[in-house]
């Protein structure tokens, strides 16, 4: 019985591994879309950094200058 459970677990684990298949290079059209980018779009990123450094009150901590008021 124990063995059967073990085999079943292994089978499920292996079956799930199939989901790790690599996407062939010519099928990466969807992955190439801007929305699939891990990073924020550049403009949004700058804005977020600006807000962040303003809130933290530490200028240039993230490479973006700015005072406590977030206005420069």
């Amino acid at each position, binding site marked *: 019985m124990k063995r059967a459970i073990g085999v079943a677990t292994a*089978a499920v684990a292996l079956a799930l591994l199939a989901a790790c298949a690599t996407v*062939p290079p010519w099928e990466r*059209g969807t992955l190439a879309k801007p929305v699939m980018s891990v990073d924020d779009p550049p403009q949004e990123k700058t804005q977020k950094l600006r807000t962040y450094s303003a809130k933290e009150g530490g200028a240039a901590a993230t490479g973006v200058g700015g005072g406590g008021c977030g206005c420069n």
Partner: protein
Amino acid sequence: MARMRTKWLAACMLAGIAVAPAPLAWSVSAGDQAPACAASLLDGGRTVSLADYRGKVVYLDFWASWCAPCRDSFPFMNELQRDLAGKGLQIVAVSVDKTAEDAKRFLARYPASFTTVLDALASCPTAFRLEGMPSSYVIDRSGAVRAVHVGFHNADRDEIRRQLDEALGGGKR
């Protein structure tokens, strides 16, 4: 006995599952014979096949509208077409886009003066087992692959040109 059979069955199933996600087999590389490949022209329904160009040196390029380096490779291929078409070079650019509209939109921005085809079912890239996008192949007059380029780098321009010149000049292998 029945138990034994079940065990075997389980083992076979596990082996089958384990093999399924295995990466694609070996890619086509220099020295190999180019596999058969056919796709339809983007500016007409006619299907062209790689075998149609036997006796010519073929520069086979795989591109897509979403492929950023392809924007650089198109002007380069236009230059190749201008300089080497008279010497017997045939450029075939295979789009792996899913729809003709996507490919045509790209071509509107980056015009091509060479043969462009659409292989939406991806039979050619599967046959060549591309390792990256874009990929290009220098195929000699006998249909053998002379060189493979994965990706497009400006530094490769001279080398590609040299390989094409060599293939064109040799006539025979």
